[in-house]
C-alpha cells in the first residue's frame, strides 16, 4: 500500500465518520436523556436527504439553494421529531420502555412508505454542493473537495455541541438528566419539556447528517435501515448517551471501514460488527459510556404481573381448529398458517429470553437464520436427508447460541441487546459475503421438504406438530423451577446471586434454549419457502418477534404466539391490498400501542 493511498483512504474514512457522527450523536443524546432507543432515527436521516434533494431543485437562490436546503431540511426534520415526541412518545413514557421502541419501529415502516409515496422507489442522484463540487490533489491523488469540507465541518458541529452541553444551563440540565432524570425533576425541571427539546435536537442532528450526505451518495429508499445499524454500532462503541464517545467511535468506524475495503474487501461488513463485539466484551459500557445505575435494566422495565393461565378450553378449541380446519382451506391460507406457526414459535422462543429472563435481544434473527441456513447447508453440502436436516438445524442454532450466549450474558439491558445485534449482524455479513458456501445475496434455493412431506397439508401438519410442541415445551420451561430462577434473576440479579443462584449460567442456558427453538422456527420456515436468504439474519427480522411479543403482551407466555398471529395476519392482509402495506401496518401498530400499552393479552385478561 503506497503512502498516498493511505492518506486518501484515511481522509475518505474521516469524511464518512463526520456524517456518522452527526446521526449517532443525535441517537445517543436521545437515548441518554429519554432512554428511548429510536429505531426511527435512520428514517429521519433519510427524510432529510430527500427533502434536501427536492428543496435544492425548488428553491430560487441559485448556488445558495443547496445550503439553504440543508439547513431547512435539518430544521424540518427536527420539527418532525418534536411532533413525534409530543404526539406519540409522550403518551407511552409510563408504559414499559420497550413500548417506545415498538412505536419508533412503527414509525420506520410509516416513514419508509411516505418516502416511497412522495419520491418513488428509483435511486436519485443528489445535487452537488456548489463551490465544493470538484476535487483537490492530495498526495498525488484526487480527493473530493466536498469530503474535505465535511472533515472541517464535523468538528465544528462537535464544538458547537460541546459549547451547548458545557457552557449553557440547558446543556447542564441535559447532562444531569442523562445521569438521573428523577433527581432533575425533583429540582424543579420539567422533564416533559426537556425530553421534547432533546428529541427535536437529536432529530435535527440526524437530519443534518442526512442532508449533508446528499452530494456524496445516491438516495435510496433503503438508506434508513443501512444507516441505523451503523449508527447503533457507533453509539454502542462510544457509549450510550455519550456525545464525545459518538465522535470517537464514528472516527474509528469510518477509518476502519475505509481501510477494510483495501485490506479485506470480502470481510468489510463483518469487521465493523466484530469491532463492536470486541469493544462490548472488553468494555461493556462502550469506550466513554458509564454503567447503568442499578435497577434500570431493560429487564426491570418489563416487570411482569403474575401469569394467569389462559383457559384450558380455549387452548383445546384452538388446537382442535388447527387440526381440523386446514383440509377445508385454500392452499394459500394453509401456507399462511405455516408461516404463522413458525413465527409463533420464533416469538415464543424470544419470550423465554425477554419475558421470563428479562434479556431483550435485538439479534434473535441469528437463531432463525442459523436454523434456516443450517437446514439448507446440511442438505446441500452434507447431503443429509430433509427430515434429518429439519431435526439437526435447531441443534446447529443451539450450538452457535452456546458460543454467542457465552459473551452476551455477561452484559445486561441495552448492552446485552446491542451485543446480540452485533452477533446477528456478523452472521448476516458472513452469509452475505461468503458467496462460495452461502450463495451470498442470491441465497440458497431448492430447499424443499422430502417427497412424502411435500404436499401443503402434510407439511402443515409437520409444522403444526413441531411448532406446537416447541411452544408447549417453552411454556413448561418457563413455569419450571428453571423459569422461576430466570424470573428471580430478571427481577433482581444481585439478590438471586445472594441466595446462591448462578445467574449467568441460567441466562446462558436460556439463551441456548431460545436459540434452539428459534432455529426450529427457522427450519420450519425455510422448507415452507424452499429458499434461504441473508435477510433471515437482518435487523428487521430480529425486530419482528420483538414486536410480536410486545404486541401480544410480554407478561404472559401466550402473548407471544397471539402477537405473532396478529402481526402476520395484519401483514398478510395489508400486503394483499396495498403496495403501501408498511404504512398501514405501521399505523395499526401505533394505534395498538396507544390503545393497549400493555399488550393485547393484558387487556383481554382485564376485560
Amino acid at each position, binding site marked *: 500500500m503506497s503512502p498516498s493511498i493511505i492518506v486518501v483512504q484515511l481522509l475518505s474514512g474521516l469524511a464518512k465518520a463526520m456524517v456518522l457522527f452527526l446521526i449517532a450523536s443525535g441517537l445517543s443524546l436521545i437515548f441518554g436523556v429519554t432512554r428511548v432507543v429510536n429505531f426511527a432515527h435512520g428514517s429521519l436521516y433519510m427524510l432529510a436527504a430527500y427533502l434536501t434533494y427536492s428543496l435544492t431543485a425548488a428553491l430560487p437562490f441559485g448556488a445558495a439553494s443547496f445550503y439553504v436546503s440543508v439547513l431547512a431540511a435539518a430544521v424540518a426534520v427536527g420539527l418532525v421529531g418534536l411532533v413525534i415526541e409530543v404526539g406519540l412518545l409522550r403518551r407511552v413514557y409510563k408504559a414499559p420502555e420497550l413500548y417506545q421502541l415498538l412505536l419508533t419501529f412503527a414509525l420506520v415502516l410509516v416513514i419508509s412508505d411516505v418516502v416511497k409515496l412522495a419520491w418513488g422507489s428509483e435511486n436519485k442522484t443528489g445535487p452537488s454542493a456548489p463551490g465544493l463540487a470538484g476535487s483537490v490533489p492530495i498526495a498525488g491523488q484526487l480527493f473530493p473537495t466536498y469530503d474535505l469540507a465535511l472533515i472541517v465541518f464535523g468538528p465544528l458541529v462537535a464544538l458547537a455541541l460541546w459549547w451547548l452541553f458545557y457552557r449553557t444551563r440547558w446543556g447542564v440540565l441535559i447532562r444531569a438528566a442523562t*445521569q*438521573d432524570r428523577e433527581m432533575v425533576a425533583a429540582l424543579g425541571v420539567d*422533564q416533559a419539556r426537556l425530553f421534547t427539546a432533546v428529541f427535536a435536537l437529536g432529530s435535527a442532528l440526524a437530519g443534518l447528517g442526512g442532508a449533508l450526505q446528499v452530494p456524496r451518495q445516491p438516495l435510496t429508499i433503503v438508506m434508513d435501515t443501512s444507516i441505523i445499524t451503523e449508527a447503533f454500532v457507533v453509539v454502542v462503541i462510544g457509549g450510550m448517551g455519550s456525545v464525545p464517545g459518538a465522535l470517537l467511535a464514528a472516527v474509528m468506524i469510518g477509518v476502519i471501514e475505509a481501510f477494510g475495503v483495501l485490506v479485506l474487501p470480502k470481510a468489510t461488513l463483518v469487521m465493523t460488527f466484530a469491532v463492536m463485539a470486541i469493544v462490548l466484551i472488553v468494555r461493556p459500557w462502550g469506550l466513554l459510556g458509564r454503567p447503568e445505575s442499578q435497577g434500570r435494566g431493560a429487564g426491570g422495565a418489563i416487570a411482569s404481573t403474575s401469569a394467569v393461565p389462559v383457559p384450558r378450553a380455549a387452548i383445546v378449541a384452538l388446537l382442535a381448529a388447527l387440526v381440523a380446519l386446514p383440509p377445508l382451506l385454500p392452499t394459500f391460507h394453509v401456507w399462511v398458517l405455516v408461516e404463522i406457526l413458525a413465527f409463533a414459535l420464533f416469538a415464543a422462543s424470544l419470550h423465554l429470553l425477554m419475558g421470563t429472563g428479562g434479556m431483550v435481544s435485538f439479534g434473535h434473527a441469528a437463531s432463525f437464520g442459523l436454523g434456516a441456513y443450517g437446514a439448507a447447508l446440511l442438505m446441500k453440502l452434507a447431503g443429509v436427508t430433509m427430515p434429518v436436516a429439519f431435526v439437526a438445524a435447531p441443534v446447529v442454532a443451539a450450538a452457535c447460541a452456546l458460543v454467542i450466549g457465552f459473551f452476551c450474558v455477561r452484559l445486561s439491558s441495552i448492552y446485552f441487546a446491542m451485543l446480540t445485534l452485533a452477533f446477528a449482524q456478523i452472521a448476516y455479513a458472513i452469509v452475505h459475503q461468503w458467496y462460495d458456501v452461502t450463495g451470498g445475496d442470491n441465497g440458497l434455493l431448492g430447499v424443499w421438504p422430502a417427497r412424502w412431506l411435500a404436499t401443503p397439508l402434510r407439511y402443515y401438519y409437520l409444522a403444526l406438530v413441531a411448532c406446537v410442541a416447541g411452544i408447549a415445551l417453552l411454556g413448561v420451561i418457563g413455569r419450571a423451577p428453571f423459569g422461576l430462577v430466570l424470573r428471580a434473576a430478571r427481577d433482581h440479579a444481585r439478590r438471586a446471586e445472594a441466595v446462591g443462584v448462578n445467574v449467568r449460567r441460567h441466562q446462558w442456558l436460556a439463551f441456548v434454549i431460545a436459540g434452539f427453538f428459534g432455529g426450529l422456527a427457522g427450519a420450519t420456515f425455510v422448507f415452507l419457502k424452499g429458499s434461504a436468504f441473508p435477510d433471515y439474519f437482518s435487523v428487521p427480522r430480529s425486530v419482528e418477534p420483538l414486536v410480536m411479543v410486545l404486541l401480544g403482551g410480554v407478561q404472559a407466555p401466550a402473548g407471544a404466539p397471539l402477537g405473532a398471529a396478529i402481526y402476520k395476519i395484519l401483514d398478510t392482509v395489508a400486503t394483499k391490498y396495498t403496495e403501501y402495506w408498511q404504512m398501514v401496518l405501521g399505523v395499526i401498530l401505533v394505534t395498538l400501542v396507544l390503545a393497549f400499552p400493555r399488550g393485547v393479552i393484558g387487556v383481554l385478561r382485564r376485560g
Partner: protein
Amino acid sequence: MLELRDVHAVYGRSHVLHGISLTARAGEVVSLLGRNGAGKSTTLKAIVGLVEVTRGTITLGERSLRGLPTHAISRAGIGWVPEDRRIFGDLTVRENLLVGEAGARRWSLDRLYALFPQLRALAGQPGGSLSGGEQQMLTIARTLMTSPRLLLLDEPSEGLAPVVVKALAENIATLKREGLTILLSEQNLAFARRLADRAYIIEKGEIKFEGPFATLDAQPEIRRAYLSVG
C-alpha cells in the same frame, strides 16, 4: 404549612404507607424517626410525588400537592434532599448547583458558598470526586438553589464521621434560624434532638408517636419498641 392526612402509598404491588398524618408548621423543624424500612424515605418520596399515593391528602399551605408532577411540587416550594444524595457525578459542583437554579432565587451561589465554604473551593471539581460529607453539603446546597419554603432532609447524618455530622448540624441550625421549615427524617436520635422541635415516630408505615422530645424521653418503652438502640 405542610400537612399530610391519612396518606396511603404503594410501591409496585406492596402497600408501604398506611395512613400517615403529620404536619410541619412554618419555621418549625420536625423530625421523623424510625428504623430502617419503617417508611421514613417513602413518606418523603410520597410528598414529592415519587411513589404512588393511593389515598389521603398532601397540602402545602392552601395548595394540594397530591398528583402533581415532581417538578411542579418542587416549584411549589418543596425541596427534597434524598437519602442517597444523588449527586450528578459527571457534573462539577457548580454545575450541580445550577441544575436547581430557578424560581424565586432567594439563594444565590454566593450565599450558598457562604453557608458551605468548602463548596466554593470545590466548585470546579466533578461531583463524583467529593467525599461523603462534601456530597451531603452539595446535595443540600443544590436543593436550596430551588429556593424551597420547606426542606425534606432524608437521613442527612447517615454514614458520616462524627466531626462532619457536627458541622452539618450547624449548617442545618443556620437554615432553621433563617426561618426555613424542615422535615428531618433520621435514625440518629441525638442528631434529631439537637435540631428538631418535635418528633414523629414511624413504624411499618404507621405513625406510632407524636410529640416533643421530653414526652418521648418520659416513655422509654416507645423508644425501645420503635427506635434502634443508641
